[in-house]
């Protein structure tokens, strides 16, 4: 029977077991790296560096994981904090301007091959909406869990998810008709 996250965390805590921690990394690397790739707008190298930093921080602070939330939710929070710190350093925290997003898509600027691409549409969203929709709709977190990860009020998460979904549907529909 495979060990649960709680069993593996216990082994890391008690015996500082690197094999148990490696198992945790293997189990969670895909969603964490996927989220960071979306947050960094597809910069794979930067996303993987941040993912590595996320897991190293998780290892160093594993005593602060009390099992109140899921291990994956705790990891997402660390990953999001790593991304924000890095974004602050690069001053790239602010997403695309609202007026740009509301404007009609210019056929010259949008690659026709990307018009149906949901991932491309996601990258056009501002960070606060992108992160909310990614966590809730792609990674299956509840609004409450996303609120803990993003460290923002529950109502704000709901608003951001709603707005992001409306914008995505609008963008995809507009690209389809064009």
């Amino acid at each position, binding site marked *: 029977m495979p060990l649960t996250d709680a069993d593996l965390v216990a082994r890391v805590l008690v015996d*500082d077991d690197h094999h148990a921690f490696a198992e945790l990394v*293997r189990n969670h*690397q895909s*969603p964490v*790296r996927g989220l960071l790739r979306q947050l960094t707008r597809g910069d794979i190298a930067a996303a993987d560096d941040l993912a590595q930093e996320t897991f*190293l921080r998780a*290892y160093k602070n594993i005593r602060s994981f009390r099992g109140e939330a899921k291990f994956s939710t705790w990891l997402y929070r660390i990953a999001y904090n790593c991304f924000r710190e890095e974004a602050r350093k690069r001053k790239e925290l602010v997403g695309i301007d609202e007026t740009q997003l509301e404007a009609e898509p210019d056929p010259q600027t949008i690659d026709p091959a990307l018009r149906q691409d949901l991932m491309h549409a996601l990258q056009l969203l501002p960070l606060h909406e992108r992160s909310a929709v990614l966590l*809730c709709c792609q990674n299956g977190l509840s*609004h409450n869990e996303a609120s803990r990860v993003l460290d923002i009020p529950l109502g704000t998460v709901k608003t951001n998810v709603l707005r992001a979904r409306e914008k995505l549907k609008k963008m995809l529909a507009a690209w389809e008709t064009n």
Partner: protein
Amino acid sequence: MDERVQEDWLDARLRDEAAYIDDAGFTARVVQHLPPARPRRSLRALILFCITLLGSIITYVVSGGGKFIGAEIDRLAALPILWILALAAGCGLVLTSIATVAAFAKSREEQLG
């Protein structure tokens, strides 16, 4: 109440787009950067036990088979009762203080996590 977003085609497409990312050596790179592992707790306990045992044997041998213990008990027994009571209370106080300090230190360590 479940706060999950109601399922629709957009959610389905978002989940479909989230392809599994192959590990491709990622886990190995993370493990390589971990600080060296502490010795296991059971190993630490064994080391402490062996050191204590060795210390006790050396003390027993050096003190001539522990004869001094009997001599000191005789001396203590000869002391007035009030002195013995004061000595016992003093020992209790010292042990209680050490245990309290250790408990506070442990509790602080747990909080800092």
